[in-house]
């Protein structure tokens, strides 16, 4: 609840304090800025609910912009990038479940591999993105800018999967068991734990790829560094929204509010001409503050 109040507070303060903030131009800009983070955070939330963590989302985002900017027709690159993202997520998930690797180590290693591949196919930013991707991000439909439709769509999908499906229920069941220290609680009740956790990592990668598509539409090119720090920002957004990093507790609306709060913070600091380096410092401090108020049972990673 507190983050929502903070969001309302910042919005009022910015709209009174600065002339630029409340203009429609800045508001739609704000939504477009918040979108990639919102999409990536929804994906991140899937794995956090099952007490995991996905540190590879940042490089998956860069990777998907690089794939889209390849010199190939869009009807090939677009499906290919989602298939590759699913493969990345499945590898993460299999490593975590079947091979018993700690999620942080598995996804950190994956971050390196994907970043390396991204730099191989696109060493510096450039290339052109298929026309339909650009149109779907920068265009407008019935006078409403496209990012609004993106927001409605991803929130609807996220809501359906997390809060209105058997899969979502199982996610929370697995995470709740892990948070209370009984790693096989959900499995004992017949939840197909391995399959669900692998699917959570696949979902995270797919959402990251979608965030990459949105970003590619905005910057109209491929960029090997565009996803940098997205893994940390998405974790911050999810944690800000009240989702427990130990698993089992969380809500989609919280994550959405967390993502918008972070985007608002960036927007406000940009309007106030705060150096981008200081913005990183502020976000890092925010992450530190949020997680230090989440009490866990377990010590360590």
């Amino acid at each position: 609840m507190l983050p929502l109040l903070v969001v309302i507070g910042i919005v009022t303060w910015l709209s009174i304090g600065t002339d630029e903030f409340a203009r429609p131009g800045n508001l739609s800009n704000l939504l477009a800025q918040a979108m990639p983070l919102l999409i990536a955070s929804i994906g991140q939330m899937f794995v956090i609910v099952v007490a995991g963590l996905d540190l590879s989302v940042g490089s998956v985002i860069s990777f998907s912009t690089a794939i889209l900017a390849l010199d190939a027709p869009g009807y090939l690159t677009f499906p290919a990038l989602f298939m590759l993202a699913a493969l990345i997520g499945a590898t993460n998930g299999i490593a975590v479940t079947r091979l018993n690797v700690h999620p942080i180590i598995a996804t950190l290693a994956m971050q390196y591999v994907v970043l390396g591949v991204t730099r191989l196919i696109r060493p510096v930013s450039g290339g052109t993105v298929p026309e339909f991707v650009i149109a779907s991000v920068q265009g407008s439909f019935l006078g409403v800018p496209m990012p609004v439709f993106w927001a409605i769509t991803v929130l609807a999908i996220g809501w359906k999967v997390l809060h209105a499906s058997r899969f979502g229920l199982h996610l929370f069941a697995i995470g709740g068991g892990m948070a209370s220290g009984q790693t096989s609680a959900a499995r004992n009740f017949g939840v197909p734990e391995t399959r669900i956790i692998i699917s959570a990592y696949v979902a995270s990668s797919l959402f990251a790829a979608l965030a990459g598509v949105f970003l590619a539409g905005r910057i109209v090119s491929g960029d090997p560094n565009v996803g940098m720090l997205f893994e940390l920002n998405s974790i911050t957004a999810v944690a800000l929204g009240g989702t427990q990093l130990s698993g089992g507790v969380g809500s989609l609306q919280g994550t959405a509010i967390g993502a918008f709060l972070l985007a608002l913070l960036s927007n406000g600091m940009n309007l106030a001409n705060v150096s981008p380096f200081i913005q990183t410092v502020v976000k890092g401090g925010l992450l530190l503050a949020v997680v230090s108020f989440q009490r866990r049972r377990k010590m360590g990673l």
Partner: protein
Amino acid sequence: MTTVLRAAGRIPPAYLVFAALLAFLMWERPQMMNPNVLGIFLRQVAPLGIVVLAQLLVVRVGSIDLSGGGVILLVNYIISANVLPNAPGIAFVAIALGIGTVVGAFNGYMVARRRVSAVIVTLAVSIILVGFVQYLSSGSPPGDVPDYMNDLFDIRFGPVPAPVLFWVILTTCLAAFLNLTVFGRRIEAIGDNSVAAHFAGVPVERTVILTHTLAGLLIGVAALVQTASIAVGSVREGLDLPILSVAATILGGVVFGRGQGGVWGPFFGVLSFALLFVSMTILGVSEPGRLIAQGLIIFAAAVIYGLRTR
């Protein structure tokens, strides 16, 4: 037969990787196998070697420290940006060790007392420090490092460069410290089972805080060696040391909470990385290829241990 296999399975992967890479280099570039050339290769990984000492300490108590990148950049900035004109060398040493210790103690407090995820805390600390340094230096390299630091770095004793000797001595000291002191035993007890350690009377929180503080101190030392090795101010060099150190530590057989590899397993993990860098240079592998190789090695080492500790 099975006991032999089981014993072979307990050998940290680092030794095998090291042997394989050494064989490869001997076969591919026999002329490089002389002490002077090898000394130069080893000198390059001395900063990494010291970060690994810090890493294996915290990994042994089931934690992790990724804040090293930020500490290294901050120390490098203070030394190279002429913040303290005409300061004596000892002042820089004190500052580096001080920064490392304070950051380590903060990490320890957050991990042990507030029970925050160690990855999140140390990553956040790192990006805060990096952002701060980049703000101070406006994103460009600050300046030059005093000459005497680089001169110290270039000293050799026969074929052995001073930084390598320093690293070996530090590793020996740490091995003795972990084996001979009560504190070392406590670290081992917590790594095996922190709940059992707690009920056996080990002050778990205090030991974890102290372990992180000690690791911070070692990272301060590594920051000095790293600064001496690159000899210029930089806002980029050294950022990947923490994650490489995690890889070398796992490769050396120290998995979260278990210390089968001791101190020398990770030591050989670092040596493997030294040879790996050389091999990749010989094979003409580009920077992206290196990233991929590093990722795959971390992954493979983690999978080997994941399957073994199931």
